[in-house]
């Protein structure tokens, strides 16, 4: 029997991934601005390791997989997010980037960025020599400042693609006095200028040649950038081949000769291919799968784990339930939440997730240290009951807890929360709603819920996680004179503190200001109560070496120093 199970375990099916895959494309377009979709995108998991493993054998080919058909290569329009993220780190070059792991500005194509005025309204950027891929109509010509202007303006003109807030609202103008200089002007100070939410996104700062941006060019089927890899084959979004860009601006890089990505919709198939050595990295759904992969493959692979940037949240509506206006009742709700039970029940392992405060743990630089958050995360149903008694909270009323229907985890979280609230005497009814027909267009912006539990998108910096607590929270009703926070949570002091942090250009000072903001949110028990972040697991063969990307936001995505030890893998 044991043998049968062992064989059985060797190849498994994971449909969750399938639903997620379709879920991702479902929300991938517009709703992606709001709804979490995990970080697994194109799976390039692997820990950052130093290059100390003997002589580098260059020119290997990396094999990876993707979980859903890439509908288009067009980096503009409603489906732009996926090709942008999939190729943003390889096919395209960028001016600069702020990796999630360090939150420090890394200059890429830019060699110098000069801040002209004190408020940071104007930046003068000098770029280095670089050439586009050798494909018609561009044919390997140099990258010019005018290409960058055209690129940013094209993004600003794109009404359908998600995540272009900076381009639409803050970017004022781009000027190019000569071929190597770009001057970007903003209409307001913005602390996240260099960040993915500003001018330095993995998605919306991919530098395109002017020719490609012209009317009538078929962007859906071709990609021309100036990144270290060039797209040489695309079979209907199911198979991609990238080859080394011979004119890449860094001498001797990339160390890989190329990479392929095959569509593998079923996670079980991906894992079987990984074990057979057909692909070099694979994403795993949870800790149980990671453990099994480790036990089967032993020392020949490395299992990696990283906090997902997505995080799960609960919101309370202060107009619908006036008692929630009393911070003691909000505290009672928070004390009634058993985050460990949520993690165990949904991720199947205590290590499958970690509690999340107002800033998710993946943004470690800005999140408060764990010991400071312990009190906030503490599960204490007795205190909750006592607080409810003290305030005279109405325990006879039935409160609704709304979730949207996408996969099955949203429902499970809602159900566990319901049971936890019932343990402190509340009556709760959970209700699932269609995501695109009801929850997103109606329930959320109208604040039409007593409580709602959902998953936040994987944000790169604290801009969005903080903005939900402001009176201008982008979720809310536009007509409300107090602002547009859909929880009806209007805290002027907090809003001012957040605005202040958003305009603070000094990195270190900003980190402290953000931490203070988090402390204020915690002290006021603000009604967006974050629950936890899941941990994403992956595995890679040990022949995949070098500086490897640790997650989608890591700097290693842009470096050419990963390689395949062909002595180990063969070929």
């Amino acid at each position, binding site marked *: 029997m044991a043998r049968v199970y062992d064989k059985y375990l060797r190849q498994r099916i994971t449909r*969750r991934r399938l639903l997620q895959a379709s879920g991702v494309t479902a929300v991938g377009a517009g709703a992606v601005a709001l709804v979490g979709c995990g970080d697994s995108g194109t799976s390039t998991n692997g820990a950052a390791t130093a290059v100390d493993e003997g002589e580098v054998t260059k020119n290997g080919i990396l094999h990876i997989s993707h979980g859903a058909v890439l509908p288009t290569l067009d980096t503009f329009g409603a489906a732009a997010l996926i090709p942008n993220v999939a190729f943003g780190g390889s096919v395209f070059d960028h001016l600069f980037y702020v990796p999630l792991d360090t939150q420090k500005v890394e200059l890429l194509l830019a060699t110098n960025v000069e801040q002209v005025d004190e408020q940071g309204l104007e930046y003068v950027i000098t770029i280095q020599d670089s050439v586009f891929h050798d494909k018609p109509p561009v044919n390997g010509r140099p990258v010019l400042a005018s290409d960058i202007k055209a690129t940013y303006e094209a993004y600003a003109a794109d009404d359908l693609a998600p995540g272009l807030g900076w381009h639409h609202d803050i970017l004022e103008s781009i000027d190019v006095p000569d071929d190597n200089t770009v001057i970007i002007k903003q209409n307001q100070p913005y602390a996240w200028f260099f960040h993915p939410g500003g001018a330095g996104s993995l998605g919306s700062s991919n530098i395109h040649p002017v020719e490609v941006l012209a009317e009538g060019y078929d962007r859906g089927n071709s990609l021309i950038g100036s990144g270290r890899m060039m797209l040489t084959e695309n079979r209907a979004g199911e198979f991609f081949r990238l080859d080394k860009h011979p004119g890449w601006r860094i001498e001797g890089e990339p160390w890989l000769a190329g990479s392929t990505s095959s569509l593998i919709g079923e996670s079980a198939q991906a894992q079987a291919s990984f074990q057979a050595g057909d692909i070099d990295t694979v994403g795993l759904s949870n800790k149980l799968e990671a453990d099994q992969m480790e036990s089967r493959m032993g020392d020949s692979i490395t299992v990696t784990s990283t906090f997902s940037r997505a995080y799960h949240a609960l919101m309370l509506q202060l107009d619908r339930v006036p008692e929630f206006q009393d911070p003691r009742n909000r505290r009672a709700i928070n004390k009634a939440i058993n985050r460990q039970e949520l993690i165990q029940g949904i991720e199947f392992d205590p290590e499958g997730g970690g509690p999340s405060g107002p800033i998710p743990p993946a943004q470690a630089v800005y999140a408060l240290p764990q010991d400071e958050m312990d009190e906030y995360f503490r599960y204490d149903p007795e205190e909750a009951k006592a607080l409810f008694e003290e305030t005279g909270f109405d325990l006879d009323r039935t409160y609704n807890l709304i979730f949207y229907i996408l996969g099955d985890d949203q429902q499970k979280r809602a159900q566990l929360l319901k049971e936890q609230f019932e343990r402190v005497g509340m009556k709760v009814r959970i209700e699932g709603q269609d995501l695109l027909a009801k929850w997103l267009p109606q329930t959320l912006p109208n604040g039409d819920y007593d409580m709602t539990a959902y998953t936040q998108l994987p944000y790169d910096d604290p801009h969005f996680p903080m903005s939900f607590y402001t009176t201008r929270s982008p979720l809310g009703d536009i007509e409300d004179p107090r602002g547009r926070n859909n929880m009806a949570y209007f805290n002027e002091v907090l809003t001012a503190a957040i605005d202040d942090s958003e305009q603070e250009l000094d990195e270190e000072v900003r980190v402290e200001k953000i931490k203070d903001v988090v402390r204020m949110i915690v002290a006021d028990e603000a009604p967006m109560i974050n629950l936890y972040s899941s941990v994403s697991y992956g595995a890679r063969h040990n022949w995949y070496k070098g500086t490897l990307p640790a997650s989608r936001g890591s700097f290693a995505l842009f470096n050419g120093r990963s390689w395949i030890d062909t002595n180990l893998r063969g070929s």
Partner: protein
Amino acid sequence: MATAITLSEDQSWTALPERSRLKDLLRIARRNPVGVFGLFIAIGFVVLGVFGPFIAPYDPQVSDVENQFAGPSWAHPFGTDGLGQDILSRTIAGARISLIIATAAVAIGVAGGSMVGIISGYYGGVVDSFIQRTGEAGAAFPGLFLYLMLIAAMGQGVNTIITGIAIFAFIGGSRVLRALVLVLKQATFVEASRSMGASETRIVLQHILPNVLPIIIVVATGAIGGAILAEAALSFLGIGVEPGTPSWGIDLSDNYSIAATLGKWHLIAFSGGAISLVVLGFNLLGDTLRDVLDPRLRGTIN
């Protein structure tokens, strides 16, 4: 096929006298053990659907995270799932949502469809022509495509599934009944009462309706099996009833990945088995009823 159904007064099931009908029933039951088996499954399903919550040892929607993925034991004969919910209770409770959806959809669809079918078949003319074309248009939608379109239009939920199934039951019912009535209309006993001056309404109520009732039962029984299957399939695809609802399709799709990871068969065996068994039961029952009630086929199977 349907046009081939022929019925005459003396063969009509309902026309038999009381006592011989009971005798007949027993005789039929003896000769159709498979049908009786189907009937038992169907009755069992209905009983579980109605009384399930009183029979189930646990609340099917209460978690017990400490008892996650427990294998079958005395406390949990079918084991527990990822939230520690009792699978036996969930399997029992799964009958209810199936039963509600199937009966509601089939009742609405078959009743409406039969009525329209009878009117269309009996009166003919423009009405019939219009109903025919609409029916053809409706029948042109492949089942799953119509459901998916309804989901795009109405959002997912119980109402959407019921609407979808009811539309098919309606079309199916109206077509069979129309064909049957076309034949009955020319039967001698109808002609006879017409020549005796009976009104059209009277003919329909007194002669047509009693004769088509058994066929309506056959159609409905067949449709219930299909409805259960449809609900399970949609829920399996993640576009059926609300996630978390104790439903066999949902339990199968929620658990099969993790069942494979952990190698725990109990996570999927009971939900998958329950769907198969109940659909089998209704199919067997439907077949037997058709054999018994449709005289043309009588004798060909046994």
